[in-house]
């Protein structure tokens, strides 16, 4: 591996981790799309700042971006407050305007500078190693690494400092307000984080990937765990894995690196979505089918128990009677009976089903279980 390649991967990991941290709270607070909105609208801030300092490397750009990001959220909030438009529509109204102004400004006044929109949206991480950071005459590594590294540290520090506030506001902003924490302040703090992270990452990976990295790894982590601390750590790890694997795939297939990293985050989500035991889709489907089947077995046992020893037992406990009595299909009845027999709850005697002791006690237990407990009004 060349040093360039190593550097690129390092940058990718740092970017992924830096994005994952605020992303967790965006996902938990159900405002994930603000990351999309902000990462588009900060273009305007960057352009305006550029007009002032005429230097793409100036830190003023980061400040301007942060302000624009906060401004975006502020506008959305204001529109929400009028109650004339629904919340999701408000987001869809604000960011295109800001983004459009930014694009127009670029086209008209900055067309000859290397601030073309392609790179804003798509970034180009492959160029990152060529942009060095020079301190006191020494080359200390790619600039992107330093910038994003700094941002990552800021994000980590903020999260540690305000952990309980973030947690409270994410789950119950009413309670937070009652306890004296201002949800608004926390919200704007979070949005500032998002904006700074987005603008820092633009150069390397572009706004689309920022959105992918802020949402997909946290969403994946959300499927895996309930614990917020773990969710944060998992998100950063998953983001990093997606970034690195994305890089290698892009390298192998010779395609867009940022796109590949976004794609891999999605693939990882897909894998978790399908395969995670308990919460994954496959696990859920299998469990639900099993539950349904088991429920019907218990229904059958109760049915047998209720008719045991009674004169009509000869009729009610026949295997084929189930389709009439319970309105089950032939296939369903067959499967339920099979499962019942297999589990040893009943045995077959000619056409009749007879409860075993085990079956009887299961039926009795279920009746107690299913009967609603006395309720207070």
């Amino acid at each position, binding site marked *: 591996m060349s040093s360039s390649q190593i550097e690129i991967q390092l940058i990718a990991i740092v970017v992924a981790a830096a994005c994952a941290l605020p992303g967790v709270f965006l996902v938990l607070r159900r405002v994930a799309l603000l990351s999309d909105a902000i990462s588009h609208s900060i273009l305007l801030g960057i352009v305006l700042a550029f007009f002032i300092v005429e230097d793409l490397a100036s830190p003023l750009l980061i400040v301007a971006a942060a302000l624009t990001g906060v401004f975006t959220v502020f506008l959305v909030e204001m529109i929400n407050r009028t109650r004339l438009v629904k919340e999701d529509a408000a987001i869809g109204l604000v960011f295109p305007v800001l983004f459009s102004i930014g694009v127009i400004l670029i086209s008209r006044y900055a067309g000859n500078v290397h601030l073309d929109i392609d790179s804003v949206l798509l970034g180009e991480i492959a160029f990152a190693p060529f942009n060095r950071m020079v301190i006191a005459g020494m080359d200390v590594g790619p600039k992107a690494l330093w910038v994003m590294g700094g941002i990552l540290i800021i994000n980590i520090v903020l999260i540690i400092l305000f952990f309980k506030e973030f947690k409270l506001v994410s789950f119950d902003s009413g309670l937070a307000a009652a306890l004296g924490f201002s949800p608004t302040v926390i919200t704007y703090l979070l949005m500032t984080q998002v904006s700074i992270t987005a603008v820092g990452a633009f150069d390397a990976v572009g706004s689309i990937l920022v959105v992918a990295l802020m949402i997909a790894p946290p969403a994946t982590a959300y499927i895996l765990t309930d614990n917020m601390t773990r969710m944060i750590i998992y998100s950063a790890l998953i983001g990093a894995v997606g970034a690195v694997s994305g890089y290698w795939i892009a390298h192998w297939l010779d395609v867009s690196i940022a796109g590949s990293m976004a794609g891999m985050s999605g693939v990882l989500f897909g894998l978790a979505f399908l395969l995670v035991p308990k919460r994954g889709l496959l696990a859920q489907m299998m469990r639900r089918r099993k539950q*349904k089947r088991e429920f*019907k077995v218990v*229904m059958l046992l109760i049915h047998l128990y209720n008719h045991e020893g009674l004169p009509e037992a000869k009729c009610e406990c026949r295997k084929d009677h189930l389709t009439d009595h319970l309105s089950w299909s032939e296939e369903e009845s067959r499967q339920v009976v099979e499962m019942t027999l297999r589990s040893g709850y009943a045995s077959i005697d000619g056409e009749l089903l007879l409860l075993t002791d085990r079956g009887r006690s299961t039926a009795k237990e279920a009746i107690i279980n*299913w009967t*609603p407990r006395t309720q207070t009004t």
Partner: protein
Amino acid sequence: MESSGVNALEVRDLTVAYRDKPVLWDIDLTVPKGVLMAIIGPNGAGKTTLIRSVLSLLKPAAGQVRIFGKPYDDQRQSVGYVPQRGSVDWDFPTSVLDVVLMGRYGNLGWIKRPGMNDHQLAMDALKKVAMDEFTSRQISQLSGGQQQRVFLARALVQQASLYFMDEPFQGVDAKTERTIIALLKELRAAGKTVVVVHHDLQTVPDYFDWVTLLNVRCVTSGPVKEVFTEQNLRIAYGGRVAFKSEAIGSETNQVT
């Protein structure tokens, strides 16, 4: 069309499961034609679930439903439905008349638009619920009681023989409550059958002639005079019912 001996609603062995527990268990229910029936029970008893199962809005684990002797799919024209008020976004840009006309869509089928006849039916229904002055009112400007009456009118234009209503008296003003109950009695007088999920025990004997007590299982079902007893209520509500009545049993019943 319907033979006189057929019951309006027949439910056999209806069981609806959620995960591994039943929400409704082995429900047997017979509702004869022309009665005004309340379904009551504690929270979580499965009352709304029962209606939804009957209307094929969810799939039961077992059991059969017959409406006038036939499966629901064959009888959709005969059934009217008044869902809970909270199930809808009242900010939607539509007028009172418009909402009521929606009740005609079932009879119209795909693509066909409401015609003059449908408009007339809608106006008649609105008059019955005393909302005919509000036809072009935007629905977000209605009070809770007015919204309920609009829903009722919507069910009326379905011109059904069997009506299901989910908590129509919940949170409405006194005038609306009187309008609704008058309407229900009128329906009964016209030979229709009305099944109402009801939340207020006190008014059951005044408003309804049949009642079903539900708590996952069917505790009892039949004419109010016969089955609406302290004992049955105790079974359904688990013994903690404060109920004052002259209508049930003989002695004052302060059940604790």
